[in-house]
């Protein structure tokens, strides 16, 4: 039945296109190297096609992909004898973005602060938050993937949002204060 198989292949491509970028960004948070991240993610897809075709249509494919990428990244890190901390500081993520255009200074500031705020999160908290936002999975799936309870996932997400919220708020106040100060000095 060629057409059945063809559609499996097409579906595989769809899954690939849908998740590739998020998976690579997820891998990047561990490896901090775009090329290594791409290698790991592609390898996971190749192995699914070669060994686990039945996964392609499974509801759990997203869970499977993110979990496999995480495990492979941790293995890779162990190989390189680096500690497996999830980092999203400014140095780790290359600056240029081809995504949403940063059309004005305000958005740029806001984005910068958001990024800095995320870098301030405690490691476990950051890991949970990052996986949640990248994979868009349910809290249950995240809990299973990281082997923690759903309660812990919710707590860590709440904690992350509160920290980011506070940070962004502080920065706004700070900028405003600086702006007034500059105004006073030059005015």
């Amino acid at each position: 039945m060629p057409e059945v198989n063809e559609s499996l292949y097409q579906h595989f491509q769809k899954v690939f296109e849908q998740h590739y970028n998020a998976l690579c960004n997820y891998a990047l948070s561990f490896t901090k190297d775009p090329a290594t991240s791409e290698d790991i993610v592609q390898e996971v897809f190749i192995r699914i096609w070669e060994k686990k075709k039945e996964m392609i249509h499974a509801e759990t494919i997203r869970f499977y992909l993110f979990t496999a990428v995480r495990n492979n990244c941790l293995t890779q890190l162990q190989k390189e004898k680096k500690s497996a901390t999830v980092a999203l500081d400014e140095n780790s993520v290359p600056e240029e973005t081809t995504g949403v255009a940063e059309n004005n200074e305000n958005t740029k500031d806001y984005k910068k602060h958001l990024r800095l705020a995320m870098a301030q999160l405690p490691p476990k908290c950051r890991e949970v938050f990052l996986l949640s936002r990248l994979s868009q999975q349910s809290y249950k799936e995240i809990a299973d993937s990281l082997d923690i309870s759903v309660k812990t996932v919710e707590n860590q997400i709440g904690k992350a949002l509160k920290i980011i919220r506070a940070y962004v708020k502080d920065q706004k106040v700070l900028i405003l204060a600086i702006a007034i100060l500059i105004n006073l000095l030059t005015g």
Partner: protein
Amino acid sequence: MELNENIMQLIIRSLNREASAEEHAELEAWINESAANRQEYEVYRKLWEDSATMIADYDFDTTAAWNEVQKKIQHTPAEVISIRRGTLYSFRKMAVAAAILIFILAGAYYIFFSGPTSEWETMAANDSNKRIALPDGSIVLLRKGSSLSYANDYGNKDRRIRLAGEGYFQVEPNPQKPFRISTSHALVEVLGTSFLVRSDETSDQVVVNTGRVKFAELNDTSVNVILTKGQKAALTHSKFARDTVLNNNYLAWESETLTFHNTPLRQAVEDISSYYQVPIQLTDEVAQKADSITLKAEFRKQTIDQVMDEIQLMTGLKITKENGNFTISE
């Protein structure tokens, strides 16, 4: 504004579309309480959405990557699934199979029950695991390929068993009549408990599920260990090695299920090797870190190849198969 934990929980559930109808109503009510509340909720919703695009900040070239992957995978579009034909034929085949089975069983009966053994009754699990009820109501689950004998005077003074292979015992409590299992090297003595005995040419293993078990060397019972619930020991060349039982995989041959819950790779490999009765090697590099890699999985009635594929996929380690032996490497 410092949000209380309850409202925070409602918000994060609603953001991930996981709030129940009641939770939604509760959150809605809170939002409508004040403009400040509404604004606070909007701030969180915006942070939630923005953080997603912010984290997936680096733009990977999906199209180029797909072309790469496409080159590497062997895409064969026309795999044909063959359909078996001829029900009559297979019925005949089944009849032949049944006849052979009866023959084997009869043969086994002849060998084990009509021999000159007047002192011992022997039972063997030739083709599948076997559940054996002993005269006193104790139960033995005998693993396929193993055999068990019990004395004709079983239960008179004591309860004596001989075991070759592997069995799980649920012993009826009776302090007056000790339950004794001898293997070629070991003597295992209990009063009433459930535990596993595994015996081969070089070593014996006992895993205790409940109760207390005395595990001794056959020729010198002063060389022994006492094991209690959750403990196991192996006897190899008159030396005991004790350990704790981490999971129920020692009974996988009965449950047909292997369960790993953050199990260190070393333990997992031991369990898999023992269940499938296949040697699995770790290279030195892998062996060094085999305790730090953990697995989380459940395998129910899967083939060894499926299990190994899964482990390869989940750990990123390389698994090769040669002459039925597996090697795990980096």
